[in-house]
């Protein structure tokens, strides 16, 4: 099959697109990749406010400026048409919307973020923009033959957010991220707890700083260094080369959108490290045996429970098992099967 894989700008696991492509090509499909980058989206946003756009609006009496997704779709239409795909696999709502025409091309969408809800969570929300985004996201969900999410809670959120989309629940599949094994760290119960050096918003850096301050155990940071922020304390000392780690500390925001977006649990497993994660974080169920959960109120006790010898040994064993078993090929098979069944 000729497949166009449109990579969206909404983030997600950095290895997922290449893993999808590899898996599809392994099954002898022809895959062409297009990307809708953050720059493309920003350019489309600016183009909305261009002189020609505003003039057109005045002349036609349109109630609002063109939607950024419409501007993007116009720009991508020709490129997509040149590929003449039999099926489009789009990652994200914006990527899917640019492929919504022609109606004859089969469309499968990966959707872990709800654009409408994220727009609604900003300040100074323009009601017309919000309604227009909702309308377009609805069109994507109605058009897609299959909607893939990485966690079942994401599917539930979509169904709750778009109750008017008929048959959505029956078209949902769960295709979690795989594990891309990277150089493992030595793991030792007596070693330091590790946290990420470079933080993004969904890591909830404020919570991380507060929890690290409560730990009596040694904490080290791991990974490429991030910028220093005045509103946060300095990060812990970096883990030394060859130094062992015990557990990877994961924090995250608890709101219904952000709790679905953390990549950290998988990243610690990639390094062979068991995970300490907040109870509200949505983690792939298959990874749960490698996870010790905590709540903010009982954090210290939850940490010590994770370090009980038998418990720690089980967590460590599970991580090693998952590193080998949770391949991209295994987690994406349901999605690739769905593509082939279309």
């Amino acid at each position: 099959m000729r497949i166009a894989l449109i990579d969206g700008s909404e983030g997600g696991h950095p290895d997922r697109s290449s893993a999808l492509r590899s898996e599809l090509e392994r099954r002898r499909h022809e895959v062409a990749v297009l990307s809708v980058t953050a720059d493309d989206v920003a350019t489309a946003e600016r183009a909305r406010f261009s002189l020609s756009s505003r003039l057109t609006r005045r002349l036609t009496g349109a109630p609002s400026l063109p939607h950024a997704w419409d501007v993007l779709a116009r720009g991508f239409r020709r490129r997509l048409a040149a590929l003449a795909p039999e099926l489009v696999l789009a990652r994200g709502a914006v990527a899917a919307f640019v492929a919504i025409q022609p109606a004859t091309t089969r469309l499968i969408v990966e959707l872990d973020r709800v654009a409408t809800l994220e727009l609604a969570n900003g300040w100074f929300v323009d009601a017309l923009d919000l309604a227009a985004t909702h309308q377009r996201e609805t069109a994507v969900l109605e058009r897609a033959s299959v909607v893939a999410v990485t966690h079942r809670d994401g599917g539930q959120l979509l169904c709750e957010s778009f109750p008017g989309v008929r048959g959505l629940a029956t078209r949902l599949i769960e295709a979690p991220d795989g594990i891309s094994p990277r150089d493992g760290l030595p793991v030792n119960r007596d070693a330091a707890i590790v946290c990420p050096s470079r933080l993004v918003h969904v890591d909830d850096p404020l919570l991380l700083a507060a929890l690290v301050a409560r730990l009596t155990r040694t904490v080290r940071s791991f990974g490429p260094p991030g910028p220093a922020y005045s509103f946060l304390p300095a990060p812990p000392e970096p883990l030394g080369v060859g130094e062992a780690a015990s557990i990877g500390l994961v924090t995250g925001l608890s709101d219904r959108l952000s709790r679905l977006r953390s990549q950290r649990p998988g990243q610690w497993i990639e390094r062979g490290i068991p995970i300490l994660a907040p109870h509200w974080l949505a983690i792939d169920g298959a990874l749960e045996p490698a996870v010790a959960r905590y709540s903010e109120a009982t954090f210290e006790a939850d940490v010590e429970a994770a370090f009980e010898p038998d418990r720690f040994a089980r967590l460590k064993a599970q991580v090693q098992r998952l590193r080998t078993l949770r391949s991209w090929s295994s987690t994406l098979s349901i999605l690739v099967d769905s593509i082939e069944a279309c």
Partner: protein
Amino acid sequence: MSAGRGLRVAVVELSLDLRSGTARPGQALERILRERGHEVRRLGADPRFLERLRRRERVPNGLAPSRDPDLALADHLEQTLREQPFDVVVARGIHAGRVLERDLRALRVLDWPNVSYIEEYSTSEPDLARVDQLFRRERAVVQAADLVVSSGTHLTQFIERQVPIEGLVRKLITVPLGCDTTSRVARPSATPRIVYAGSYYPIQDPYLLSRLTGLSPFPIDCFGPRAPADQHLPSRLAYRGYAADETFLADYQVGLITVARDRLREVSPATKLPYYLAHGLPVLFPSWMREGHDFPACAMPYEESTFVSQVRQMLEPDRWLRMSEAALVAAEGRRWQRTLGPLVAALESRSNVGPGFR
């Protein structure tokens, strides 16, 4: 400041829009200061400036005006403040607070209803670099102020623990949000109704409000300065418009609060809560909102899963009557005259009000 003369106070806000609940404390402060014989002038941004600020928030990078609008506002306000001498400048919020960094020769008071950098942090996918920029800006304003006002005990405790600004704790005072006296109070009804009065920013969680509207066995009516954008919500909101005063609350039986669940919102006080109490309305509040738990006799916590049962319990006739009476008693303790008293006393003492002044 000479003996026998009242203070000359400038109350500076970003918006003088009286339709907003956040304008209430500024209005109340003005009224109480005037009652005590002080001279008060309220200053704010031109509505056109506010529109430019809102547009700047929506317009992508590259099209935003080159000058920081807060600095433009501070320039405008400083010019006005220099036209006549003031003894006290009370700046409400960080946007208006930028003027406190100027050389004002007055007691500089920051009324700090929202910790802006944490508010920005709590919105959808903020840029941490921008959060940091806001923090540094906020820190500069706080450090320039002589007095910093927090609007609730839980918020004060949070600020003391969480906000890393040197010197803040010693200048921080708590002035709880208050309410006005009212001529009408709620009455029992065979067809009870629930009211939500406020705005629909994400911090108030219109999604939660919508879900509750769908669940509630009794109608939930919504009032506020602007109609909510609700086409994307699971249930449409029953928006009834804007009312110039709060007496409409007396037509309802329960006051509803919704608020997003984040670190700041858990400790932030709700402007509407004292007004609900003042009208004899028992209050339903999200269980994670700490302030609600300070009123066990007239407020009940809920989660989405318990909302219906909590509403039904609250509306049992005997219980409702008890809670309504308790609400009125609680409201007495929250009259603006009482809650603003310590602030007014601090302004008078720190500005050396003369012996001839009452």
